[in-house]
């Protein structure tokens, strides 16, 4: 197998693994936020704000992996 083929293969697997990690983390975050809002609807605004910030940070981490994957695919 030539190096390009392995690189494309790895890029695909990398993208899949990235999305597993990111989606699992954000899913847990959303579940906790839903539960918090259900327990105390007054705090819905604060919880929503904190959830969005945390989701942005988790997405930021998954983008590190995405950049590596894209570099594999285009180089």
């Amino acid at each position, binding site marked *: 197998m030539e190096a390009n083929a392995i690189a494309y293969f790895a890029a695909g697997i990398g993208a899949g693994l990235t999305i597993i990690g990111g989606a699992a983390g954000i899913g847990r975050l959303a579940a906790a936020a839903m539960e918090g809002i259900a327990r105390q609807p007054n705090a819905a605004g604060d919880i929503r704000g904190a959830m969005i910030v945390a989701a*942005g940070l988790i997405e930021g981490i998954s983008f590190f992996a995405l*950049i590596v994957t*894209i570099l594999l695919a285009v180089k």
Partner: protein
Amino acid sequence: MNALLLLGSAVQAAEPPAGHPAAGGEGAHDIAGTLMHHVLDQPFYGLPSKHLAFFVFAALLVILMARLALRSYAAGRVPRGLGAFVDGIVVFIRDEVAEKNIGHGDGAKFTPLLCSFFFFILVAALLGLTPFAATSTGNIAVTMALATVSFLAQQWAGISKHGVVHHFAAIVPPGLPAWLLPVMIPVEIVSMFTKPFALMIRLFANMLAGHMVITTLLLLVPLMAQVSTVFGLSMIPVSLGLSLFIMALEILVAFIQAYIFTLLSAIFIGMYAHPAH
């Protein structure tokens, strides 16, 4: 809209592959070339760099927005319209972001910088969604510049408050057993650099990924059209619908990323201005 133009040129290019950036050659290479052509930097009407042109344009827009907002404060009136919008955001950044994270005296000192970050990143991202435009923060050089400014602000916050020696001496938390110092000092010094590095990559990747997804969805049309024209034409409403949805999501992401960059900068500045919090 650039979506329609891209679709038009792409469907036209699928049947006779001519009149398109990579004319001739196999179809798959054409599509990958178009994708890269749309998200990477390119010369622009004689200017060397499209991202640079829109970087300057976004900065000028922010300055113009600030000036126009200031005018609505003339003669002590209550600001309305653009002034009220800008006022709301500036007060939000001063109270919620700067004062809460940097501390009560210094928050107002850093508010202009944080507002600059917020408005510039927001305007640059929203500008990139308009037809024929490019998102300047989708270029790693631009986000590297923003992260460098943030880094310098963090160092300045520490050095101006505590002096150079104390700023670097206070990097490690106090009350640490002596045998941990050889581990903690390199870790803390590296973390001083990874914080702005993470800011840079986060903003760059968010902006780049959004545009790559939009362009990829639109390029599904010529991809399908290579199989048969009917597939290509029936793909158009699906592709357009999905990419319009992703563009709406991009607007939300623009706000969120601007806020996160500003918030994290404020948190890091606060960590150096008031260490051992």
